[in-house]
């Protein structure tokens, strides 16, 4: 099969687009910078660079002697544009070629198109059409096929419909864009599309609508609210006091206009200073009917142009199949409705009005054979250039100079540097033997750039990556040697657990915020306290085997009010480059703030907490020993027996420490405690992991059945997600991860059971069995009565509610069957 052109380009007066036909579908390419499909057809020559598109558009009004737009209107004339900044003239062909070259950079597949279909207005004559062809050749296309815009739009439509319903019919293509209006009569006869007649207005489009909203709705509203002499002049004049606000208002008007396409009203928020220096703020409401009235005369004038065409061709509205709407401004409902109403011809809005022409061009290109003499694949020839680059790879500056020496023939070549996050583009610059460019850096980040050397058609011939680390990365190597974690209560097991705050190898300085819940109610006039304990060491370990970095105490006696269980505490952790840790706690909603700094040299060990920890550890060793004896695991018993002596010794010494001990005894004791804890966990970890693994498998099977029988889609997905990760956490030695998944399964199980009548009845019965202990016997009786009725009436939603109410009547210790430990007071 012979090759086809495939690439279609809408080279517009205000915007241009590129699309590709591929196996029956069309892809409209997006600008790699900003991801928009359309590229403003504007070229700016600023300093030594050429900028095409949106950036150039920003300079269009303010630097008109070096920024050119709307040059399509001059195609085929002998006129050329004098560019002040480069002191040269550029023809409309040169400028169009630059836009075409820029469009090539949208092609993300790395292909270099050798041919393209380029669209031209129906009004273009031979000279203008030939000029467009020349621009295409100048941009490096060896074959250029032209296609009329109304035909392209019609093709985009025809390819969306099936059958031959269009055969031997005619219609109008109505193209109202941002700044131009075109209308064409298209006829299809014997399978061939033809533009029969056309009209247009080169100075009419959506931008006019935005300006009208500002001038006729916003400005009069503001004038009523403050003292302004000549508000409109102040806004529109470049030297006006409020020129900045003009652009803000235009933007707001455009947003409102878009919103009015789907909503009946929109609001514009305005704030500006009046002539007396008073702040005037207003929330201006624009309704759809107000907006419609505002643009009615414009729409009517477009309908007039269609009438002109109809009269000229002796046609009645009924002779036309439809009016095909193209161009962004045809999104406006009143444009569609008014045109239909005035002409009595149905409007057709089946195609995307913004990219229809490019899509149609690509469809055409997909059927047009490539007629190149050398249509062979381009060899990836090695670049004949040698590049020697110099730049700082790390920096504390906001900008870094990049320099390169180029060896080889540089004539006719150019270069361009872009930052990979899409925030910087040097524009196209002429290549010389030495190049230099200031690269702006994103602070505290790894900045990655791509330097491309391009040939005269904008095809890359060499690519170089530039990487610069800014800010904290300049001290790379300063990394956290171990995880830093927060100790929290593990209420379920009456133990403590770790939550990782910073992972090992985090680059310093680092900052993180966390929110924790208070896990016990503290009365404000007691000695109670919450301990924010930060430890260093693997976060998968048990807390007691990690090194304490410091503990921030939130004392009840420093509170004005009681601290209720469930209250949130905002924690901020900061680690400086010298590894000192600052912990900042803010207690919601009572307001007090606490903070402390722990430095690695100045270790912070709380004597009271240490004594408690040693106590807990001793108890744990005894428990484990008893269990190991029961299981006849003598090896473990042996290890644990050896630990009994030292821990008791430690306990005795800890009692002797005073609260304000200033010697380093407490540090020594803490170290010894940590070593014993490590040995304990080492000896028992295999057992606990094994136990958790079997618990996991057991619960998994139960939940699997349950999910299959009564799970909803979300629950099925959640279960599947856990199963998908299973191989990872089942093979891990991290108790925390295993425990986390077991608890998730339990959560899922409970969630499903809550809907099961049998479970709810069972739960109700077990609550009824505890009737003696309810706090409020009268209420409990009522609930129990109600519960029985709900069971009889099979109203299980209500039964669930009763169960919850009854549960809340149980005294605290009944709810928590296990004895709960509150070591830190947070969970």
């Amino acid at each position, binding site marked *: 099969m012979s090759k086809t052109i495939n690439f279609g380009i809408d080279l517009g007066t205000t915007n241009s687009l590129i699309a590709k036909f591929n196996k029956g579908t069309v892809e409209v390419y997006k600008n790699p910078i900003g991801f928009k499909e359309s590229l403003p057809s504007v070229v700016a020559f600023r300093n030594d660079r050429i900028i095409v598109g949106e950036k150039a558009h920003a*300079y269009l009004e303010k630097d008109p002697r070096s920024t050119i737009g709307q040059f399509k209107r001059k195609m085929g004339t002998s006129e050329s544009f004098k560019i002040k900044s480069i002191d040269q003239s550029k023809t409309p062909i040169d400028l169009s070629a630059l836009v075409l070259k820029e469009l090539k950079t949208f092609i993300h597949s790395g292909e270099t198109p050798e041919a393209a279909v380029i669209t031209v207005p129906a009004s273009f004559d031979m000279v203008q059409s030939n000029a467009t062809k020349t621009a295409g050749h100048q941009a490096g296309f060896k074959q250029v096929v032209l296609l009329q815009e109304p035909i392209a739009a019609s093709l985009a439509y025809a390819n969306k419909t099936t059958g031959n319903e269009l055969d031997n019919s005619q219609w109008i293509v109505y193209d109202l864009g941002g700044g131009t209006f075109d209308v064409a009569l298209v006829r299809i006869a014997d399978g061939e599309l033809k533009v029969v007649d056309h009209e247009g207005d080169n100075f009419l489009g959506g931008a006019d609508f935005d300006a009208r909203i500002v001038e006729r709705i916003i400005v009069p509203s503001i004038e009523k609210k403050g003292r302004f002499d000549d508000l409109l002049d102040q806004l529109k004049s470049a*030297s006006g006091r409020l020129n900045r606000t003009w652009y803000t208002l235009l933007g707001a008007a455009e947003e409102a206009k878009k919103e009015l396409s789907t909503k009946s009203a929109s609001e514009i928020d305005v704030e500006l200073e009046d002539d007396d220096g008073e702040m005037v703020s207003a929330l201006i409401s624009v309704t759809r009917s107000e907006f419609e009235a505002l643009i009615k005369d414009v729409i009517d004038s477009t309908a007039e142009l269609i009438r002109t065409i109809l009269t000229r061709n002796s046609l009645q509205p009924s002779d036309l199949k439809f009016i095909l709407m193209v161009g962004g401004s045809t999104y406006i409902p009143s444009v569609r409705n008014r045109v239909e109403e005035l002409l009595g011809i149905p409007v057709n809005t089946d195609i995307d009005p913004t990219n229809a022409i490019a899509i149609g061009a690509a469809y055409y290109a997909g059927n047009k054979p490539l007629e190149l003499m050398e249509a062979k694949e381009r060899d990836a020839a090695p670049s004949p250039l040698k590049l020697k680059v110099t730049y700082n790879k790390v920096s504390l500056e906001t900008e870094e100079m990049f320099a390169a020496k180029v060896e080889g023939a540089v004539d006719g070549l150019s270069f361009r540097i872009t930052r990979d996050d*899409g925030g910087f583009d040097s*524009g196209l610059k002429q290549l010389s033997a030495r190049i230099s460019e200031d690269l702006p850096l*994103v602070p505290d980040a790894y900045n990655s750039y791509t330097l491309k050397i391009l040939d005269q058609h904008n095809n890359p011939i060499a690519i170089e990556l530039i990487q610069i680390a800014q800010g904290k990365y300049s001290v790379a190597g300063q990394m956290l040697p171990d995880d830093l974690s927060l100790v929290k209560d593990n209420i379920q097991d009456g133990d403590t657990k770790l939550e990782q705050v910073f992972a090992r190898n985090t680059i310093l300085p680092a900052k993180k915020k966390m929110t924790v819940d208070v896990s016990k109610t503290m009365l404000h006039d007691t000695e109670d306290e919450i301990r924010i304990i930060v430890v260093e060491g693997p976060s998968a370990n048990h807390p007691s085997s990690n090194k304490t970095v410091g503990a921030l105490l939130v004392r009840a006696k420093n509170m004005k009010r009681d601290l209720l269980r469930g209250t949130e505490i905002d924690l901020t952790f900061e680690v400086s480059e010298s590894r000192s840790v600052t912990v900042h706690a803010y207690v919601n909603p009572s307001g007090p703030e606490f903070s402390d700094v722990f430095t690695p040299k100045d270790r912070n060990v709380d004597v009271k907490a240490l004594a408690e920890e040693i106590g807990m550890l001793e108890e744990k060793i005894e428990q484990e020993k008893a269990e190991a004896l029961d299981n006849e695991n003598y090896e473990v018993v042996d290890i644990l027996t050896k630990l009994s002596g030292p821990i008791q010794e430690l306990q005795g010494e800890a009692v002797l420490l005073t609260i304000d001990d200033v010697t380093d005894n407490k540090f020594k004791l803490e170290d010894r405690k940590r070593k014993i804890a490590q040995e304990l966990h080492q000896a028992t970890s295999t057992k606990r992991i094994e136990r958790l693994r079997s618990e996991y498998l057991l619960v998994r099977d139960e939940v699997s059945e349950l999910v299959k029988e009564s799970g909803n889609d979300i629950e099925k997905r959640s279960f599947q997600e856990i199963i998908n990760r299973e191989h990872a956490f089942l093979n891990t030695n991290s108790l925390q991860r295993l425990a986390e998944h077991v608890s998730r399964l339990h959560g899922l199980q409970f969630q499903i059971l809550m809907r099961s009548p049998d479970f709810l009845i069972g739960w109700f019965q077990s609550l009824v069995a505890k009737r003696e202990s309810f706090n409020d016997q009268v209420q409990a009786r009522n609930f129990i009565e109600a519960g029985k009725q709900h069971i009889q009436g099979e109203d299980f939603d209500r039964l669930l509610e009763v169960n919850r109410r009854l549960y809340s009547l149980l005294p605290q210790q009944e709810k928590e069957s296990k004895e709960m430990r509150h070591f830190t007071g947070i969970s």
Partner: protein
Amino acid sequence: MIEIKQPASADQLKPLLSALSQLYELDRKVQARSEFQALGRNLEKMKAAFDELGYRIEDPQGQGYNETRVDLEASIAGSSTEDLVVTEVIKPIIRYLMRDSTGEYSKIIQRGVVVVESRSKKDAQ
């Protein structure tokens, strides 16, 4: 080149970007008025939550501007195009962050929409 995958398509992101722009707007209003100071902490928490999800709001107010800054869509107020500075932010820059063991990378998913004007003119005002 480091390839950062877009978190979602542009259309899917629209409501999120709109929410983030509103958050920025709210933050600016709160900062400007002392009576709203108490809301600052809640806004900080919201921003931190979005940051956690990988979305970061960047305020270009007061930053220098030239034609190489493609993270901003600018309207130039006044008549001079030299020594430009951002004087009005209509929409902030929004980045999508990706963190891995080698560092933090980002991609701009919403360009800032701003008004810029010449520094000399601004000083003269």
